[in-house]
């Protein structure tokens, strides 16, 4: 494949890039959408026309330079076109999360001072109507899908088709309108406002300029040698920076095709039909796909199962090495080629990865088993590290240098330094302009000379790869001064299928200790296969064999941690297996299943005290809420297990 020519510096906005694509590759597919079961393709020439009419339509509706316009809906070509049309007029699109409730939407619409909204369907229109009274600036609403809206008589509701038709008429009368408008925008103008999901406090509106998005997208294209022949899929929320770069920015820069799935429920089938060459997914999606494969293999016939096991073991041994271009013996190479015909090929075809050249994952740590599974099959899955404030790319794993537990090397034009506190900082062309109407937050995050605090703690390993260990505010210190990174340890534990949740303690303590939750599905199925009978979760969790298995896992984690001098202090010395599953209904987890460390520390105070004493067991009574709202009490005597830690450089012996 030949490298494509990157756009010249004069093409510094998306409308200009679109015009360039219209001239360079008018017949190449730009965006696809599945409608009534059939993929409909729009080429660059058509998209440019659609956007031109739409821009004039929005202008007739009253959109002015500098206006903010909310965009709400699933990934639909028309909503992407709306973004370009708004940018052509110098207005600023503000994509919102389509699943946000009216309350959250009200905050963003009001904060962004949106005068217009372009939405997908009745669901979104209803939400906006509900909040309209509280957002006095919101004037007009445009919708794409008319279903269910026939009886809505409000004069401020407009159908997309009508708007575009009006724009078409306008353009006939003013043939130079569009060209004049797009010439007025430049690279340093604001391109988009993306609201961060706001796990801490109210969402913040990150303003990105055209330079931010276009340059970062172009650097990504250059680094990975993307061409206009790529196919990718737009299925993650449009309000998320990743989608904005992968499905919008890079598509316009490189001129490749993006496909919108039929609905959020059909993503996996659509993936298989399309066979993208470039794909992004958060770790949980890769994990789900792997689980589905494993479950279905268990149901397969004897011969298939044997073949699968044999060749997967082979792939584990040499697959990743072949992908990385490392030396592999001729025998293994031959067997791997056979495996490709018999197992790997058909398998990745079922998953829709046959044509894949590049797959990214990011967002959280991915389990090494999952990561290696895809790489050993020949799927070039790589991790990257990024944020909205950076227009995504901070680090990317370079081809051939992939380690499951690092996030790679700095991307093109990105500088990284580690602050004295251990926090990762970066500077790049993608660094955001500012937080909208929030100078204090901007000042806290961005230094005057353009460095940005990520809020993550990390360090470079000896190969120059960045390793992210935890949120900077969660990283603590042991009494002896050793580093304590709870999430890093917990993630390592959770990568074992037997362990569902883990909570690590150690900040201002003598050593690191942990609570562990077993995974009822995984351990239950082990118990079934090994004739271990149990009556309840509590009984299974207290089974000596189960505890021994968990102990083995933790010893493995300790050995891994010992390798790294910075993290060796996080080795776990005492642990217990909890008698109940941590549950969001009891307030122990957030609704997105994140451990609420502080709450758990309060609730199980006596257990923590026992962990840091010499006691071999601990007694506890816990109030629980059942699914129907009734409350009950679980009593248990929990065994506390001591572990040996692997020897490392700082000579710390057991404290107890």
């Amino acid at each position, binding site marked *: 494949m030949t490298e494509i020519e990157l756009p010249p510096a004069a093409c510094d906005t998306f409308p200009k890039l679109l015009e360039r694509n219209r001239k360079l590759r008018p017949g190449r597919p730009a965006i696809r959408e599945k409608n*009534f*079961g059939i993929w409909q393709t729009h080429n660059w020439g058509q998209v440019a026309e659609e956007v031109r009419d739409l821009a004039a339509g929005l202008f007739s509706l009253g959109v002015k330079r500098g206006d903010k316009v909310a965009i709400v809906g699933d990934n639909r070509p028309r909503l992407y076109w709306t973004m370009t049309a708004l940018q052509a007029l110098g207005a600023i699109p503000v994509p919102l999360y389509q699943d946000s409730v009216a309350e959250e939407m009200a905050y963003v619409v009001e904060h962004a001072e949106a005068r217009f909204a372009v939405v997908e369907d009745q669901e979104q229109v209803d939400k906006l109507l509900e909040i309209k009274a509280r957002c006095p600036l919101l004037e007009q609403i445009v919708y794409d899908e008319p279903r269910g809206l026939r009886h809505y*008589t409000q004069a401020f509701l407009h159908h997309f088709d009508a708007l575009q038709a009006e724009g078409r008429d306008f353009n006939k009368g003013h043939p130079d309108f569009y060209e004049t408008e797009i010439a007025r925008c430049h690279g340093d103008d604001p391109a988009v406002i993306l609201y961060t999901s706001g796990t801490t406090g109210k969402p913040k509106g990150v303003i990105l300029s055209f330079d931010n998005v276009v340059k970062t997208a172009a650097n990504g294209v250059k680094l990975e040698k993307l061409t206009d022949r790529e196919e990718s899929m737009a299925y993650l929320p449009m309000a998320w920076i990743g989608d904005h770069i992968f499905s919008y920015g890079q598509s316009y820069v490189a001129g490749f095709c993006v496909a919108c799935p039929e609905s959020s*429920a*059909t993503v996996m089938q659509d993936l298989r039909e399309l066979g993208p060459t470039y794909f992004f997914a958060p770790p949980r999606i890769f994990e789900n796909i792997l689980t589905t494969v494993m479950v279905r293999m268990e149901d397969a016939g004897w011969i298939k199962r044997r073949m699968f096991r044999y060749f997967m073991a082979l792939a584990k041994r040499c697959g990743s090495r072949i992908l990385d271009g490392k030396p592999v013996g001729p025998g293994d190479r031959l067997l791997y080629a056979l495996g490709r015909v018999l197992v790997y090929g058909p398998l990745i075809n079922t998953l829709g990865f046959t044509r894949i050249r590049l797959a990214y994952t990011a967002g959280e740590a991915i389990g090494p088993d999952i990561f290696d599974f895809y790489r050993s099959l020949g799927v070039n899955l790589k991790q990257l590290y990024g944020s909205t404030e950076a227009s995504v790319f901070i680090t990317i794993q370079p081809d051939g240098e992939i380690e499951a537990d690092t996030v790679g090397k700095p991307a093109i034009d990105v500088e990284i330094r580690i602050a004295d506190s251990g926090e990762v900082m970066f500077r790049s062309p993608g660094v955001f302009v500012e937080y909208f109407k929030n100078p204090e937050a901007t000042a806290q995050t961005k230094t005057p000379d353009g460095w940005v605090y990520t809020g993550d703690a990390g360090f470079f390993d000896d190969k120059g790869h960045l390793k992210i260990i935890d949120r900077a505010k969660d990283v603590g210190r042991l009494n002896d001064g050793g580093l304590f990174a709870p999430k890093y340890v917990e993630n390592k534990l959770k990568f074992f299928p037997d362990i569902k949740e883990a909570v690590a303690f150690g900040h201002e303590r003598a050593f690191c200790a942990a609570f562990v939750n077993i995974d009822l599905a995984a351990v239950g199925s082990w118990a079934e296969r090994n004739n271990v009978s149990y009556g309840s979760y509590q009984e299974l969790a207290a089974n000596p064999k189960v505890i021994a298995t968990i102990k083995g896992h933790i010893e493995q984690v300790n050995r891994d941690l010992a390798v790294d001098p910075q993290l060796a202090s996080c080795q776990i010395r005492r642990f217990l297996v909890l008698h109940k599953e941590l549950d969001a209904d009891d307030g122990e987890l957030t609704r997105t299943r994140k451990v609420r460390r502080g709450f758990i520390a309060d609730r199980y105070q006596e257990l923590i005290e026992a962990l840091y004493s010499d006691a071999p067991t601990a007694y506890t009574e816990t109030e629980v809420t059942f699914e129907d709202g009734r409350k009950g009490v679980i009593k248990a005597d929990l065994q506390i297990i001591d572990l040996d830690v692997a020897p490392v450089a700082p000579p710390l012996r057991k404290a107890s």
Partner: protein
Amino acid sequence: MSYGEKHIGETLLKVDNITLAFGGVKALSDISFEIRKHEILAIIGPNGAGKTSMLNVINGFYHPQQGRIEFRGVERRAMRPHLAARQGIARTFQNVALFKGMSTLDNIMTGRTLKMKSNIFQQAIYWGANQREEIAHREVVEKIIDFLEIEAIRKTPVGRLPYGLQKRVELARALAMEPDLLLLDEPMAGMNVEEKEDMCRFVLDVNDEFGTTIALIEHDMGVVMDISDRVVVLDYGRKLADGTPAVVRANQDVIDAYLGVSH
């Protein structure tokens, strides 16, 4: 929301003094009511009241010993289910009656059979006019799939689907006939709250978007009172009441026989 006024038209189907007996058992005695164009009519009543028998009479599966049925102002005699279907009456069943081994798409396509002009041999050759015909039917079916939001299960064998979705596929098949009158036998039985809400929305949308007249049997009084324009109450084969949900709810006979009182 500012919904436009709904136009309930003239009588679409009229049943007059229907009596149906199986041997000595009178399933229906002397029932009269009418279904008007574009309305949602609910038929309610305790177990064994004769609700399903009533639907079976309407779509020609049972033949009443007495009484007359007028459909679109024409009295019909010797009705058979396939004739009723041809006239524009579609139905779904209390216990889902789909082809379990066939995909969702194929199941819905069977709903188009009556509308197809080509015969089985022409279809097997699949060329020219037959191909065009099949494509046209497929288009209708795809619109229904889109309408009922079942894209994700388009190619899944129906037997593998959960019950709630099977009910939706059955509704899709009935809609594929583009009926004037849709008979739904307990469309929400055995569903959880969320599935019920979805189904309610689809029933209302079908009624609104396609103007289809709907007669449904339902036990969930919340659903009945919410979505129906008129309610007919049966008890032991007799008609107890007939009117708007508010009127029926206040009727003492209905309360005694079926609704009960809250203590």
